[in-house]
């Protein structure tokens, strides 16, 4: 089977997003689609799956032109898509989401037992047996929601499967299961489009790679014949230098001290310290309680036991407002539901946390606000035509930078990062790493949760590893291997690997 998209053009209003893009896909291949944030990857895939209509251009399947006007048309043509943004209905259960629009029914009555059974089987096949099919989708973690989205797309039995950053919220174990499944589909002749900003994954699982830059197709390569540098050069049009810029900061005094922190549900007895100028990484599998540590520190979740000090003084853990007042900042993992107010402009989002700094007696000084935002846009290199645009219209990576902007308007004492580069392109990642390094140099203590092991290992001074809510190791990041972390994260480390650094 062969799917070709030819001469695809698409504009949103005056913004030309895709220009004359050709993209060819064969059955049985895993084809990476790469490009910077905003290059047009998601838009191209939304056209292939019937979400958007191209302004011009055509789609052919096995040489015959097909008209894909709606998502139904795409499904009929055997094209399924896992969208970059999560689309589950939070109030419905997992299984209701899985079967939305195609519920197994008899005379209009839903066959709940059949539905439950099939849903269970689909999730088990993904290795997601810990997800309860009756649970409300909104109660799942982001990673679990992602697994449900994947299961939903796999259930379509498609000939073409588009995966738009499916692993952005998954950790190593789930990714391995997913890759095994993808190989199985590949062997059955399914064509898979794989969009991701994680270079290791691309080189690990894909056969071919197509690159978009600023809405134009710039080339196709066979994975075996290319390398990291060439791909980056195709994407960015220049060399980006070090992937993980080095940091030359000697950690200073302890800023954040945590002793025996528990929330009674997800985490138990967590203890660590983060020093000025230090990046403390937190690793673990999905559901291990990594985000919960940050949420408890930030006053989102209730603490049931434990003490926290900031610069030697007890920290008020009652509310996010109190945490912010004390000097904490928190880049959350899910920018759509927790990070941004979609519908508000880039400017309004960027100044949401520290609006008071541009106000006197509660009245906002518009000029000061605009000037500050303009400066942040250039400093963080946020790609937007205008600060007044709805933040929703920005690409994922640029949305993430807006979240950073909102917290960095005033330098925090402690910065909590939950998957800070989720969905951010190589260049953007390097820029975010630079920002992290600058903050560290300025004496900020940084606590970073990340599922991307190369990132945690390269950016952290020390790494705390969790397994099912308890810490199993606190490593010095120098001379550490991925295997060490995985052993601690899966709870299979034979001995206590805790290092006693301080």
């Amino acid at each position: 089977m062969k799917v070709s998209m030819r001469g695809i053009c698409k504009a949103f209003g005056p913004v030309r997003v895709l220009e004359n893009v050709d993209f060819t896909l064969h059955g049985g291949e895993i084809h990476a689609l790469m490009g910077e944030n905003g290059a047009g990857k998601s838009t191209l895939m939304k056209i292939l799956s019937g979400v958007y209509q191209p302004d011009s251009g055509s789609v052919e399947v096995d040489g015959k032109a097909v008209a894909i006007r709606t998502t139904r048309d795409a499904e009929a043509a055997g094209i399924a898509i896992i969208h970059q943004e999560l689309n589950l209905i939070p109030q419905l259960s997992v299984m209701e989401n899985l079967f939305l629009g195609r519920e197994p029914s008899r005379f209009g009555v839903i066959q709940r037992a059949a539905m439950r059974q099939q849903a269970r089987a689909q999730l088990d096949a993904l290795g997601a047996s810990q997800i309860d099919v009756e649970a409300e989708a909104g109660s799942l973690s982001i990673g679990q929601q992602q697994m449900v989205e994947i299961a939903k797309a796999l259930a379509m039995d498609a000939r073409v499967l588009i995966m738009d950053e499916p692993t952005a919220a998954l950790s190593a174990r789930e990714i391995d299961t997913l890759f095994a499944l993808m190989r199985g589909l590949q062997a059955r002749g399914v064509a898979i489009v794989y969009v991701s900003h994680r270079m290791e994954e691309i080189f690990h699982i894909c056969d071919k790679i197509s690159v978009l830059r600023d809405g134009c197709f710039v080339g196709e390569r066979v994975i075996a014949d290319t390398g990291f540098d060439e791909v980056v050069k195709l994407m960015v049009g220049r060399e980006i230098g070090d992937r993980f810029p080095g940091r030359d900061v000697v950690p200073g005094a302890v800023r954040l001290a945590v002793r025996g922190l528990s929330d009674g549900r997800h985490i138990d007895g967590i203890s660590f310290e983060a020093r000025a100028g230090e990046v403390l990484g937190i690793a673990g599998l999905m559901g291990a309680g990594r985000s919960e540590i940050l949420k408890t520190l930030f006053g989102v979740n209730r603490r049931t036991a434990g003490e926290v000090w900031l610069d030697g003084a007890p920290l008020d853990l009652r509310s996010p407002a109190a945490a912010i007042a004390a000097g904490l900042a928190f880049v959350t993992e899910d920018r759509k539901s927790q990070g941004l107010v979609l519908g508000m402009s880039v400017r309004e989002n960027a100044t949401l946390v520290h609006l008071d700094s541009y106000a006197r007696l509660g009245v906002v000084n518009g000029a000061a606000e605009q000037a500050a935002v303009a400066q942040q846009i250039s400093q963080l290199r946020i790609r937007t035509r205008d600060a007044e645009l709805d933040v929703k219209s920005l690409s994922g990576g640029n949305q993430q930078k807006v979240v950073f902007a909102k917290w960095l308007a005033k330098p925090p004492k402690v910065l909590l990062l939950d998957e800070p580069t989720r969905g951010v392109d190589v260049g953007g990642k390097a820029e975010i790493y630079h920002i992290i390094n600058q903050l560290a140099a300025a004496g900020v203590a940084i606590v970073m949760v990340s599922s991307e092991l190369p990132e945690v290992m390269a950016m952290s001074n020390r790494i705390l590893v969790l397994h099912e809510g308890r810490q199993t190791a606190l490593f010095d990041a120098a001379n550490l291997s991925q295997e060490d972390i995985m052993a601690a994260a899966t709870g299979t480390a034979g001995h206590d690997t805790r290092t006693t650094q301080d």
Partner: protein
Amino acid sequence: MTAQQKATLQKLGPFIALLVVSGALAIMSPDFLTVGNLMNVMRQVSINALIAFGMTLVILLGGIDLSVGSILALSSVCIALMIQSGLDPVLATLLGIAAGAGMGFANGWIISKGKVAPFIATLASMTILRGLSLVFSGGSPITGLDSDFFQMLGGGYVAGLVPVPVVWMLLMFAGFWFLLKQTVFGRHVYATGGNEEASRLSGVKVDRIKIWVYTVSGAMSAMAGVVLTSRLNSAQPTAGTGYELDAIAAVVLGGTSLTGGRGWIFGTLMGALLIGVLNNGLNLLGVSSFYQQVIKGAVILLAVLLDRAGKK
């Protein structure tokens, strides 16, 4: 037409609708476009507009306030009783508005701290407060409020031309415009309505914002109650029944989204004026009050449908 121009046109939709309807009425009825009649319309509109301004904040938060009519009635009854008992009318008026604010505060507190859905909470308080105004008034109107000051609040004129309630309305309009456009509070209202979770995580004191917004809505209802009581020179325990619907209609006609986060106060003023102009025009044309309701409902539906179509 660029997207920006289209958005601006979209936003001005309620204004354009008002011009069109006014133009049509001016052609059909010679009495419509007279200074006296227009001032009369504005005065009639003022009560709904005052309530609708507060309602705009509530709806921007994604909430709803069904209790505005009952708050209006109960605060009127309180003011009338205070004046009757010989309290200084100025003080009585201020205390009455404070009482309305207090009732709104109770709504906000129950909604934010008690985590009760706004519809349910204000449905309950609508019933309770209506009952209390019947209890306090003994079920009959309270009359004989002979205070020049108090009668001026609803019935007076500024410069012999502009009714005092219209001045209230315009002052409040300016105040709300400023509040929503220029203040930290206003920004936090939009943010909370747009995404409560993200706002809370950004340090916005979401509960406090909610309580304030319902408090303001209560105070605005009481202010409308002052105007109405002064105009009628008596407090009716059943006054304000159904006013919540007119206020919601004005807000929605003005383009504010019922799901929160999006809207503006200018639209609400236009919406209130549109409803007022329709009422007045249909009266002038001698349309039966039965048909008036049908026409009003149809216009609201049409306006909202046009708004939808424009957004696509």
